[in-house]
């Protein structure tokens, strides 16, 4: 691998760290900033033995390099995952950003450009990272200065509840995957490795703390509504009063995304070359392919969302046009109306603010309606479980709202077990209706 200078190494890795911070979707506070800076300082102390060894010309054993390669591929996957998640809230043309295909298009384009940059070589990536980092620092400084309004200072105390010192410390390690790249690339640095390490950790500490503080100052008051506090702070900060400049942040997001992923790809390719000396061609392509695979593992990019982002129906009552739902992990009982059961359930998703999953429904209470049609619809379209029990009530909404669904379900099961009530699972009921 070609040699690079200390500022170039610092630029490459800091871009990667800042991009990880941009994709961070937890709460931030001034305590987090302190914890983050402390964690970075701690990491500096921890890597010192490695730095000293590198200064003496010692190299890492192959087994360690292999572990680093695995780590860097996973970190590349995490970065691509961050990009995937943040794609629809950044200003990548609105029309294209949403949905699976939009995210796929954005991630694929960034990955393709990263691959090109990686193939141009280490020197090219290092030199261009330096220019990109310089541009990025100007952006972030503008953002930071615009966030330093006296009216924003109150947000520091408002946001104190959203992050602790320990959160910051944890964040410094979780978002510091480029530490692996630092260890791997250290032998390629010209001159003193100690100086390179000091420069990287200093730049990383200052810039990370500045970015977190900008987010705290700008979004502190509404931190709980911010999915990605750093991105939101850039979107909300207004250096010029007459216009919105948040779309400009997209440039920084895209550029940092490209270089962050490039660094991971390049480092993984470099380590692959060190471990398998005969593996010369397609190293970068293999690295990015593995990172994309890792991204799939992290984000489950083909699914429609996180498992925790859905409401699971426990009990459903309907009279054909109105549905009343009680959930497993939600105390709310939602009632929604529609022209038929499907439109009523779609309306219920809007009321719930998240997708409604009916596959785990344990009890359905039917009122006066075309019961056969409703049951067929539930079984075929809404994929309720075949073991879901069915019962009748004159007013399903009243029943659900006034009786604990678990109690109702337990009573029914017991009655069936004792033979006092007929089997009432949806398949049996539907079968009886066919007869």
């Amino acid at each position, binding site marked *: 691998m070609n040699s690079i*200078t200390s*500022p*170039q190494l610092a630029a490459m890795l800091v871009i990667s760290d800042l991009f990880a911070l941009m994709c961070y979707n937890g709460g931030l506070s001034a305590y987090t900033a302190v914890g983050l800076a402390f964690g970075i300082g701690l990491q500096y102390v921890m890597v010192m033995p490695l730095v000293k060894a590198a200064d003496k010309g010692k190299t890492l054993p192959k087994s360690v390099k292999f572990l680093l390669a695995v780590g860097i591929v996973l970190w590349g996957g995490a970065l691509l995952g961050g990009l995937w998640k943040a794609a629809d809230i950044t*200003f*990548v*043309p*609105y029309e*294209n950003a949403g949905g699976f295909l939009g995210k796929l298009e*954005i991630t694929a*384009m*960034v990955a393709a*450009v990263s691959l*090109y*940059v990686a193939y*141009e*070589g280490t*020197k*090219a*990536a290092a*030199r*261009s990272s*330096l*220019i*990109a980092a310089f541009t990025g620092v100007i952006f972030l400084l503008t953002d930071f200065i615009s966030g330093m309004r006296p009216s924003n200072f109150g947000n520091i105390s408002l946001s104190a509840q959203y992050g602790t010192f320990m959160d910051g410390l944890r964040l410094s390690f979780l978002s510091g995957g480029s530490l692996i790249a630092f260890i791997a690339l250290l032998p390629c640095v010209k001159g003193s490795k100690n100086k390179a390490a000091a420069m990287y950790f200093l730049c990383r500490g200052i810039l990370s703390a500045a970015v977190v503080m900008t987010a705290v100052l700008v979004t502190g008051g509404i931190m709980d509504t911010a999915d990605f506090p750093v991105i939101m702070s850039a979107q909300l900060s207004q250096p010029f009063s*007459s*216009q*919105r*400049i*948040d*779309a*400009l942040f*997209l*440039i920084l*997001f*895209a*550029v940092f995304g*490209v*270089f962050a992923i490039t660094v991971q790809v390049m480092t993984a390719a470099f380590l692959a070359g060190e471990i398998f000396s005969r593996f010369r061609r397609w190293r970068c392509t293999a690295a990015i392919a593995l990172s994309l695979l890792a991204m799939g593992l992290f984000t489950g990019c083909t699914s429609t969302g996180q498992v925790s982002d859905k409401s699971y129906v426990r009990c459903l009552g309907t009279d054909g046009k109105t549905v009343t739902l009680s959930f497993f992990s939600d105390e709310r009982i939602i009632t929604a109306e529609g022209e038929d059961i499907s439109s009523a359930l779609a309306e219920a998703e809007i009321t719930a603010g998240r997708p409604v999953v009916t596959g785990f429904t344990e009890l359905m209470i039917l009122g006066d309606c075309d019961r056969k049609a409703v049951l067929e619809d539930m079984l075929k379209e809404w994929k309720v479980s075949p073991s879901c029990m069915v019962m009748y009530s004159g007013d399903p909404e009243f029943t659900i709202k006034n009786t604990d669904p678990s109690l109702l379900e337990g009573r029914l099961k017991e009655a069936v077990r004792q033979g006092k009530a007929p089997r009432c699972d949806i398949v049996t009921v539907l079968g009886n209706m066919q007869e």
Partner: protein
Amino acid sequence: MHGLETSLEKSIDKIKRISGGSSDVLVNRFVTGGISCALICCDGMASSSVMSELIFEPITGISAKNDAPELFHHISGELLLSVDRPEVRDYPTLFRLIHSGFAVLLAEGMDYGLGFGVQGYASRGVQEPSGEGNIMGAHEGFTETVRTNMSQLRRRLKSPELVMEMMIKGSKSNTDICLCYMKDRVPPALMERIRRSLDRTDLEAVLTTGYLRPFTEEKRYRIFNTTGTTERPDVLCSKLIEGRVAILVDGIPYAIVIPRLFCENFQTLDDYAYKPYYAVFIRWLKYSAFLLAVFLPALYTAIVMYHPELLNSTLLMILVDAEKEAPLSILTEALFVLLMYEIIREAGVRLPKPTGGAVSIISGLIIGDAAVKSGLVSTPLLTVTALAVLGGLVVPDIAPQITVLRFLFLLAGGMFGLFGISLLSCAVLANVCASENYGFPYTAPFSPFKASGMADTAVREGMEKLQSRGFTVEEYHE
């Protein structure tokens, strides 16, 4: 081909056979000192008056000699017939010399000839360069004659450190090439690499600098040239003093300069004639013009199409009003205007000068005015495009690259908004940063960053500080 014959008749026969009886190869037979001789030259390449005065008159007056070697010894040792007197031992050399304006003397019984430099071909005189405008500097430019160009350099650098190595390239053209460098500024290893690169050439002819430049640049595809050209001897001298290497080619009024850095596209000799504050202003104006030239149409298209919130309401309403009447999409409009400009520019460059005026009238008044009035193109877009095109003219050395990049960025911005522009910027930046020439990074001193290099790139410090710096391009070598 073999060495010359000792028989004069055989030599003349062979010359006629090789030249295919070409009518411009002249053979003048005469007897001097009692020995049969022939003076071979090429019609139109040698000066007949110089030949008769400096060669024929002294030679024909030589007293009788015992044999041909004695005759040649007398001519070489006692007659100063011309300054440049190479010995000719084979036919390729003979033909190369006579085609370069030499006269070659052959004698019965001699297996070599004597060449005399009596060039007298018509050539353009030293004139003001047409492409590199300069206000305060010299108004002399290179000509098509390599010797004249060498003399122009020597006049400005009267130092024994300036070395000019002649060589010949082109199997058919036999073009004279001159490698110029300051031997105390350029490492011998670098010179050796450049010579090796030139040795790789296997061209039949060298007719423009473009024939040689690819051999002195990287093989991989790069957007920008890592070698430069100049038609100004004063500019070339400044480059040589900075430790660069130049190649002069006979027949071409441009010198190739190795290596070329990105920042040089924004420097002119005039910068050093003005006060530093003004030079800095002009330099930053050029950097801005470059960015405008490449990005402005793309940013306009991306912002209007995808990110209108970046504009304030007044400006947005103006643009909405302007675009309301336009039948085409903004991207199509922008492409149309840029293509129109490129066609007009190309027509202006290739057409004879008298017709060029007509092209200006047609393009400016008829097409431009009519396009706006007909509503085919909106006025803001035309303004933006004109500004971008003007910006490109401020940095003429990289005008071709600016043109292509402008189109690419326009397409990226039109299709993917600022996101597309950002991604393409990353790719272009990587390509530019990957450009190197003999280990000199094209983007130095910006990246790799050299603080000392900023004195004459980001700003232009005073001459007192610059002279104490003693800069050579070797500082940037990696």
